[in-house]
């Protein structure tokens, strides 16, 4: 230990002798790491898997069961009510859920000012399939329409001033509902259950309503809806349940390969039967996409983040080159001292240990500066791309990654120069 402190001291003395080149090296390395890390934060968070143990078991089926004829089209990303019923009519999936999002105004009484809220209109399986934590109460016992809502914790606190509000009444768009459950803090990031239209970057919804109630009360999707026939979107409860008004997202849980295989077969049979019955003319094009692939399938990956990731990687490369260049210069100017130490009997191992102390010191400085720059970078990215703001967060894994990256960069930057300095011909250097 004492030896280690000695090495650190020697490093420090050598830094103090020529502070500018050292400061420049640290600055440039931190700059590269900081800029890279700021963008990597978003890249990492947006591509992270919020349900790693389940994301290959939840599937999003799509079929071309539509009243238009198209023989080389992708199926629509959203389903009609009747198609969801057909796709649900199978015992193969462990669980299945249909959903969409809308918005409304929530208040305790009509005399109060309304609070705009986002509503997820869905079925009870949503909460178990996507592992939504419940703080108080319970979810609906079946898929039937009912005047019951589930609130997020923040919404309950905002409206009632407390979280345990099970049994309380609220007004949503001037209709009375009973609160039957309150969620615990929950924000799946990215929100893979709603990946269409880049909705996966958004906040979790505030109010949860039974699917049938949403249709009965004519809630239209606020994200995407399509009418492929003359269904009147003001008649959601009647025409909307039978016509080609597409607005639902649909997920099935298929735990095993066998289940997946069986469900594919089920979809094929269903579409073939429907075609035979003359309900659509298109060549079948069935898709069953796993949750972990859904964003890519919908083309919702952030091109800007990706492009910038490419560029920041290049920048990091340049900074690494530059820092090693600076560091090489620094070591070469210290070469005489190195040779002298070796002449005085320091072994190569001891010199290498000295370099390790250099690396650690450099890592320390670069981590500090790099984090500072990365923090500024994240703020800047939040400002320029506010849509992605939910993803500008650091977690322990990410910080550890930064530390590892900094350590290896510092090592790289120090390695070649120190090798040059310590393995050069002893004689020649002293003579020079």
């Amino acid at each position, binding site marked *: 230990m004492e030896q280690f402190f000695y090495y650190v001291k020697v490093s420090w003395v050598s830094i103090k002798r020529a502070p500018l080149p050292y400061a420049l090296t640290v600055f440039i390395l931190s700059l590269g790491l900081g800029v890279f890390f700021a963008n990597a934060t978003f890249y990492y968070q947006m591509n992270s898997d919020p349900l790693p143990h389940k994301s290959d078991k939840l599937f999003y089926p799509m079929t071309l069961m539509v009243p238009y004829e198209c023989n080389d089209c992708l199926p629509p990303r959203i389903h009609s009510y009747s198609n969801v019923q057909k796709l649900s009519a199978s015992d193969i999936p462990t669980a299945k859920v249909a959903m969409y999002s*809308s918005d409304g105004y929530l208040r305790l009484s009509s005399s109060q000012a309304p609070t705009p809220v986002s509503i997820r209109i869905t079925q009870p399986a949503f909460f178990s399939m996507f592992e939504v934590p419940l703080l108080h109460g319970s979810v609906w016992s079946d898929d039937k329409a009912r005047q019951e809502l589930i609130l997020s914790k923040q919404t309950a606190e905002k409206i009632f001033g407390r979280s345990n509000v099970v049994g309380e009444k609220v007004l949503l768009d001037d209709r009375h509902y009973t609160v039957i459950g309150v969620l615990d803090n929950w924000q799946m990031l990215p929100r893979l259950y709603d990946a269409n239209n880049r909705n996966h970057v958004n906040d979790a919804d505030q109010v949860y309503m039974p699917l049938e109630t949403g249709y009965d009360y004519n*809630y239209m999707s606020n994200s995407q809806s399509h009418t492929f026939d003359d269904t009147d979107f*003001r008649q959601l409860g009647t025409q909307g349940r039978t016509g080609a008004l597409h607005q639902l997202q649909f997920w099935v849980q298929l735990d095993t390969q066998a289940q997946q295989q069986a469900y594919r077969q089920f979809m094929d049979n269903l579409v073939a039967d429907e075609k035979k019955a003359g309900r659509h003319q298109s060549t079948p094009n069935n898709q069953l996409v796993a949750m972990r692939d859904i964003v890519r399938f919908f083309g919702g990956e952030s*091109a800007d983040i990706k492009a910038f990731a*490419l*560029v920041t990687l290049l920048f990091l*490369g340049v900074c690494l080159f530059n820092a090693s260049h600076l560091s090489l210069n620094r070591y070469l*100017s210290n070469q005489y001292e190195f040779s002298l130490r070796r002449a005085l009997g320091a072994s190569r191992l001891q010199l290498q240990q000295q370099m390790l102390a250099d690396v650690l010191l450099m890592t320390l400085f670069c981590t500090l500066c790099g984090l500072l720059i990365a923090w500024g970078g994240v703020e800047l990215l939040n400002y*320029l791309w506010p849509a992605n703001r939910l993803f500008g967060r650091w977690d322990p894994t990410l910080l550890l990654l930064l530390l590892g990256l900094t350590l290896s960069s510092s090592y790289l930057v120090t390695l070649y120069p120190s090798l040059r300095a310590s393995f050069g011909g002893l004689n020649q250097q002293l003579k020079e």
Partner: protein
Amino acid sequence: MSLHLLLKSLLRRKVVTLLLLVQLALTLALLVNSLLLAGQTRDKLNEPTGLDLPHILQVQLKPTTTDLRAQPLLGDLLERQLAAVRTLPGVKAVAYANQGPVRQGGNQGNLYDPNDEARTNVPSIPAYIVSPDFFAALGLKLLEGQLPQTAVPLDGEVRSPMVLTRSLAEKIFPNRSAVGLDTSYAPVAAVVEDFFGHLMATEIMYNRIQVAPLLGVDWGYALLINTEPSATENIRQQLPDLLRQIDPNIEIFYIRTLKEQHQRLYSNEFGLATLLGILSGLMLLVAMVSSYSNAHFHALKQQQEIGIKRALGASKQLIFLELLSENWLTTALGALLGVAAALALNKMLASVISLNALSWWLPLLVSLVLLVCVTVATWYPARIATSVSPATATKTL
């Protein structure tokens, strides 16, 4: 100065030179592509929209009660709002619409010539449902036909006639007047000048408009206000209070000029261009630091050599020039590599975002910028190096 000797001296310092070259090349590649993207974004922001962007205001709002979101109360609310806004000084025209122009996407429909569906079908056209003053509110020029003067309900017996923008009319009814002809939805009453509709539509300038009452506004609606240039800001300030006075049961999402709306459309591109710009600046800085430190270190290391050269009759100026040309040579070589790197980066970026191909003059321009920066960075250490006293420098250990 001899190129041959310069090259030799560079070759003697292979690693350092290589590091410098790679770095210069990458800097050039990034600079070139950032400039390209910045130029592209600027072009987008300057594209013709057919609208007087800065002086048209759009209010996006939604009633907070269900009754107000449907007829008949909705019709009454709209009338009261329009009448109130009209009284504001500086308002030239005001209209309601199910959605405003200059957007990413929104309410769209298809349209075709019923006689030739296969060839004329346009899948995604913004479908506007508006009040009669919509055309005045956007300052649209009537090209032919007659603009509908009254709102005809979309769910009634009589079909509400349609107004098309010029390029859409030409697409569906090529080489003839569209006025009076029937489309898949309704007959065409008039053709107006093109304007920017939805970015995600089949074509930006394709728009179809029907003058009709709004059926329901679950997605909110827009008030479009054409203002006197001097009054725009004033009107914007007064609108929130005025509208809440008419009926407090509304949520106002935003009030923007169409110019702001337009800028927001490209905020992602603008953000990326800004970031790349900042990064390019940093890269130039890094390149300058690198040139500086390289020249500085090199000059120190070469003190003796410079002394010898001075003794052999090289003037200060010559030594200075020699040091600069060494950097110029590296920069030129780096720039040459950089052009290749820029092309490669261009290809890579183009695979994730839309990016134009490189023009020949851009790398040239950036190489010049790089050269100037490197020269500036080398200047000071080179000056120091030339002031080395030859008498001391030629003294050996």
